C-alpha cells in the first residue's frame, strides 16, 4: 500500500506490528498484548490524522492509488454486470465504463470513470480522462436507461475530461454539454457517487442528477488545485492554498448545498477496508433508488431542474 507523507508515523507502527506478528508465530503469547497495544495506538493516531485532514491532504487521499476505483465498486456491488461498449459514432472509450447490472437486486444502468490501477490498465483507461466518445457513450446509455425505465447510477472519479488535440477536434465541449443536458432530460432516477476526484466539466457531465453523494474523503472542484494555483498564484507550489480556497471537500460541498449526502469511510480511508465501503455505498444507493423510483418521471425532472436552478442563487439580491 502506498503511504502518504502524513501517514508515515502510522505506517511505521504498522510495520512494527507486522514484525511482531511474524514473531508471535513462534508462540510467544506476551507479544499478542503488545500487538493489541500498538493496534490501539495506530487507530488512535489514524483517528487523529483523519479527523483533521487539511484540504490538501484530502486531495491526496482522494487520489490515493490504492483507493477503490469504479471497476472495484462495480465488481463488488453490481451483480449480473454486463459491460456495454461504444458511442455508435466513433469509438469505445474505456475511460468511461458503462453497462447493465443490478444493485441490491434492482436492475439499473451503471456509468463511471475508471482510472486504472497499474501502468497497463491506466493507459488502457486513459487515466480516467474520457474523450468525446466517452461522453457520447454515457449519453447513449442514459437514453437506453430512460427507454427501459431503469434508474441510472454514476460513479465519478476523474481528474477531468481529456485535454488533447483529438478530443478538441471531435468536440469535447459539445460532448460534455450534451451529456449534462441528457442528465437533465432523462425521466428516470439519476444517482451519483463521487468516489474519488470530481474533476470539473469532466465530472459534472455525468453528475447532474437527482441525488449526489460523496465519499467522506473525496473531492469535487471546478478546477484542480494545481491548475488553480498556476493561474491565480502563478505557481503550482501553492496548490495547498488553492485546495483550501476552492472549498472542494465533501464536507464543504454538503455545506454549500451542492451535494445531498456524505458516505462515511472506514478509519484511514476507503482503501483500508474496501468491503465496508462497498456495503455502505450499495446500501445508500439502494435506499435512494427506492425513494426516487416511487416518483413520476416528470416530477423527478421538475425536482432536478429546481435543484440546479437554485444553485448559488441564495446570495443574490
Amino acid at each position, binding site marked *: 500500500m502506498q503511504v502518504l507523507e502524513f501517514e508515515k508515523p502510522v505506517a511505521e507502527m504498522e510495520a512494527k506490528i507486522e514484525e511482531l506478528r511474524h514473531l508471535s508465530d513462534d508462540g510467544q503469547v506476551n507479544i499478542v498484548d503488545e500487538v493489541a497495544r500498538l493496534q490501539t495506538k495506530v487507530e488512535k493516531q489514524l483517528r487523529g490524522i483523519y479527523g483533521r485532514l487539511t484540504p490538501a491532504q484530502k486531495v491526496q487521499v482522494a487520489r490515493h492509488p490504492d483507493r477503490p476505483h469504479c471497476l472495484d465498486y462495480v465488481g463488488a456491488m453490481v451483480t449480473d454486470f454486463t459491460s456495454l461498449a461504444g458511442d455508435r459514432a466513433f469509438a469505445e472509450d474505456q475511460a468511461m465504463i458503462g453497462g447493465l447490472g443490478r444493485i441490491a437486486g434492482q436492475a439499473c444502468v451503471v456509468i463511471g470513470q475508471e482510472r486504472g490501477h497499474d501502468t497497463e490498465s491506466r493507459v488502457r483507461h486513459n487515466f480516467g480522462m474520457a474523450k468525446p466518445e466517452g461522453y457520447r457513450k454515457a449519453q447513449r446509455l442514459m437514453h437506453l436507461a430512460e427507454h427501459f425505465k431503469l434508474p441510472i447510477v454514476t460513479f465519478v472519479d476523474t481528474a477531468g475530461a481529456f485535454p488533447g488535440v483529438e478530443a478538441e477536434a471531435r*468536440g469535447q465541449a459539445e460532448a460534455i454539454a450534451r451529456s449534462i443536458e441528457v442528465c437533465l432530460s432523462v425521466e428516470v432516477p439519476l444517482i451519483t457517487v463521487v468516489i474519488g476526484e470530481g474533476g470539473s466539466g469532466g465530472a459534472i457531465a455525468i453528475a*447532474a442528477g437527482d441525488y449526489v453523494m460523496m465519499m467522506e474523503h473525496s473531492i469535487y472542484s471546478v478546477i484542480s488545485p494545481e491548475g488553480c494555483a498556476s493561474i491565480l498564484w502563478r505557481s503550482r507550489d501553492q496548490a495547498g492554498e488553492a485546495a483550501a480556497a476552492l472549498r472542494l471537500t465533501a464536507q464543504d460541498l454538503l455545506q*454549500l448545498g451542492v451535494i445531498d449526502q456524505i458516505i462515511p469511510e472506514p478509519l484511514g480511508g476507503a482503501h483500508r477496508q474496501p468491503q465496508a465501503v462497498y456495503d455502505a455505498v450499495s446500501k445508500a444507493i439502494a435506499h435512494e433508488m427506492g425513494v426516487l423510483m416511487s416518483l413520476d418521471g416528470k416530477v423527478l425532472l421538475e425536482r432536478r431542474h429546481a435543484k440546479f436552478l437554485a444553485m448559488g442563487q441564495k446570495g443574490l439580491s
Partner: protein
Amino acid sequence: MPPPPTLCAEHLLFVNPNLSILPMNWLTNFVRPKIRALVSAQKEIPDNLWEKCPGCNAMLFKRELEEQFNVCRHCGAHLRLPPAKRLEMLFDDGAYDLIALPKATHDPLKFRDQKRYSERLKEAQSKTGQNDAIMVAEGLMGGKAVIIAAFNFAFMGGSMGIAVGEGLVIAAQRAVAARAPLIVIPASGGARMQEGILSLMQMPRSIIAAKSVKDAGLPYIVVFTDPTTGGVTASFAMTGDIHIAEKNAQIGFAGARVIESTIRETLPPGFQRSEYLLDHGMVDIVVTRHELRETLIRILGLLTGKAPANKNKSAAASLAGPFPHGARTLPLRRK
C-alpha cells in the same frame, strides 16, 4: 509662442507637435531617435486614441475602429467588442432595453488568492460599469422581438459565476414569457474559479435555462465570439439550435497551454479557431461581424416560419444591416 524644445528626455518621450515643425538638424535626426530608442517607444501615443490591430499591427484610430464595430479596416481582424456596442450593432436602430439583473457582490467562498475575490469584483465593476460579465437586453431585430444575452470579456475574462448564470436564467425566462427567440453571445474564458464548485454548477444551471427556451419551441441561437472556452463552451454554448461563430474566434474546451503540456507538441495552425470548428462539424456558420445581424435576422425568420422581414414596414429601414448607415444615431433606450 511655446518655448523651444530642449534636449530633455521628458519632452522626447511624448508626442510634441512642435517638434515636427522644427528645422531638420542633427538634434532631431540623430539624438532624438537615439534617445527614443533608449527609452523605447512607450507612451508615444496616448492609449485612448489609437489601438494596434492584433492582425496586421496597423495603428487604428479608435473612434474609427468603434464605428466599424472593432473590425480592422486594413485586414478585417475582429477585435473584441464590448457588449453594449454589440447590442447596439444587432438591434434595429441600435435601440434596446436592458433587463435588470440582480446585483451580485457576494463572495460565497470568501475566496482569496493573492487578492480577495471581492476586490477583484469591485475592480471589474468599476472598469466596466457592469455588475458582472453579462448584459441582457430585449429589443427588435428585423422588426421582431428578440432577447440577447451578451458577455463582456473585459469583466474577469467573461467568466461564468453565479451572477452570469442568473443572467442566463433571467434571459431565458424573459424569452419564454415574451415568446421571443434567445440569442446568447459568449466571450468567456470559462467558469469563474473564485466561486469554486458553485461556478461549476452554473453549467447545468445554464443548460436548464437554454433548454427551457428550446422546450418552449423558441429558437435558441449561440453566437461564438473570441474567445469562448472551458466551462462556457462545455455548457449552454454548445447546446444551441444554431451555432454561429464570428470569424477566427478561439473556441474550445481545454486551453492551448494545457493541451500542449499534455501532448508535448505544438498545436496545428488554426487549431480551435472558428473555421476549424466549422470543419469539424461543431458550428453551423462562420460569419464576419458585418454579416452577423443580417444572418441572424434571416435565420430567425426561417426558423419561425414567418414572412420575410422586408415585408414588415417597421423593419424595412434596418434590413440592410448597420454598416451602410454608418454608426447608428438613435439614442439608446435603457432601463
